[in-house]
């Protein structure tokens, strides 16, 4: 488990912390700690390659089946996308 002092190393101006402070898991810390063989799972969304995604000329998502969440995920997969539910 990562310590608070190790989290402080992520900052250019290192904040004062003590290792008695609890570190709650979050996606950024997971990303920083990910082992190479789990990279594809934890990092396949490519944070920090972030650029503006060009708006599609034709809305390719309109063809997806929205009758249920299951059918939406299935139709996304069939259309060649990986799909991850962010919020419902």
């Amino acid at each position, binding site marked *: 488990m990562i310590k608070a002092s190790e989290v402080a190393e992520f900052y250019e101006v290192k*904040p004062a912390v003590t290792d008695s402070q609890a570190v709650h898991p979050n996606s950024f810390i997971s990303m920083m700690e990910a082992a190479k063989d789990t990279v594809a799972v934890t990092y396949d969304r490519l944070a920090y390659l972030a650029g503006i995604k*060009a708006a599609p000329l034709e809305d390719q998502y309109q063809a997806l089946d929205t009758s249920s969440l299951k059918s939406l995920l299935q139709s996304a997969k069939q259309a060649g996308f990986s799909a991850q539910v962010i919020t419902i």
Partner: protein
Amino acid sequence: MSTTTQALNSKINIEGLQWIDRWRISNGRPGSFVVPFPTTRPVNIVTHGEKRFDYGQYGIHLAQQDVLTFLGDSSQIVHARFIDCRKTSTTFRAALEIEFSPSSSRTLVIPPGVAHTFSGLEGISTLNAYSVFLPPIENMLKGALGWTPENDIINLPLSTDPARVEGLMPMTQPASNRVYYRLASLQASTLSGGNVSHAETRNFTLDTGEQVRLMLQPETESLAETTSAPRSKIKGVRFERHGAVRTGENSWIIPVAGPSPFYIVDHGVEPYNFDSFGVHLGQEDHLTFLGAGRRNIGLKLVDMRRGSETLHCEEWHEFSCDPQMELVIPCGVAHALFNMESVFTLNRPVIYLDEPGAYEPGKDVIDWPLTDQNYPVFNVNRQPASLDYTERLVALQRQAMAEKAAIETPKAVIVTDPVTGKQVKVVLTRAAPVVAASAS
């Protein structure tokens, strides 16, 4: 600050959004410059194809400050629109539209939380030497990040009314080099399997009326599907593929990891052919060529490394500008490039040191006449520079740039000492008039 940059900044009404001058030195010919980027951190090349290119929507980052240098035809006009979406900004909800032309002499800084979009980027490559920001450590430790590290992009339609935008709270604390090196490592691992497409977050309404937000990402493309590159018989010379992220039909992000500091050579628009070979003893060049895809670049190579199994092997190659291709030229392989006008070369070299530690990276170019086939033999450096060395090198470069020295890139020639009869290297550095960063 140059008068052009001042004029561009005078129109800006959004706090923190600004143009800054890019320090650069003459490359020995009018209109040609070497533009150093003293950083060990990863950067992105963003390409937009050659057909009309508009993003068609705004993008906002919460943790990334874009630091953009636009490289392309300086007569082209780019249109940009911005909205300040930062809840606590003094210019919250201010909107701005500007026009500008590409130039290696200036860089646009877009703070996190400022929505931005560009149109008219076809034929232009953008170099993004981005900065990363984090939440205050109290929030980080609590797990209350306030942004999605896996996908730091929020899109808004172009029709968004600036007066109605929701306030956002971007990240504020600069990240350390440790974060950047980790990101570079993750990028390399992820892209080693092939090109990927940028994820997009979309809201869907199910037939039941339920709202769902999905992150959608097209599947990975194999690198084998990309165009073929030349092959060299000279040991160590290679044309490699950069992994890339597709962000649109014709747009790509190509990450270029460090940790060596890098530079761009802006070859200008006048005919540009090397008039001699260049040889480095401690610098393995990693070159990416940015420019119109139809341009045919010529490359002449001669292996001058002592002990090389391909010593004095000569080659001629022709290839096109392709930002997804990287040309690697090892130390001791002489090279000359032709038809380079309107081409920008990004070189993120790997540095090797000599045993005595006397190597000076800034003076490591030996010129050899193109017509003299009495080729010399060089001992090249073998010891890879450490991360600590490259970080110190970056600090020295920043110091030199702060002094605004009026210099050109140095040249070194090999001459025979009439007293000892030995060949010696003579470094020639000519003082030149101050190159105003506004030159374009």
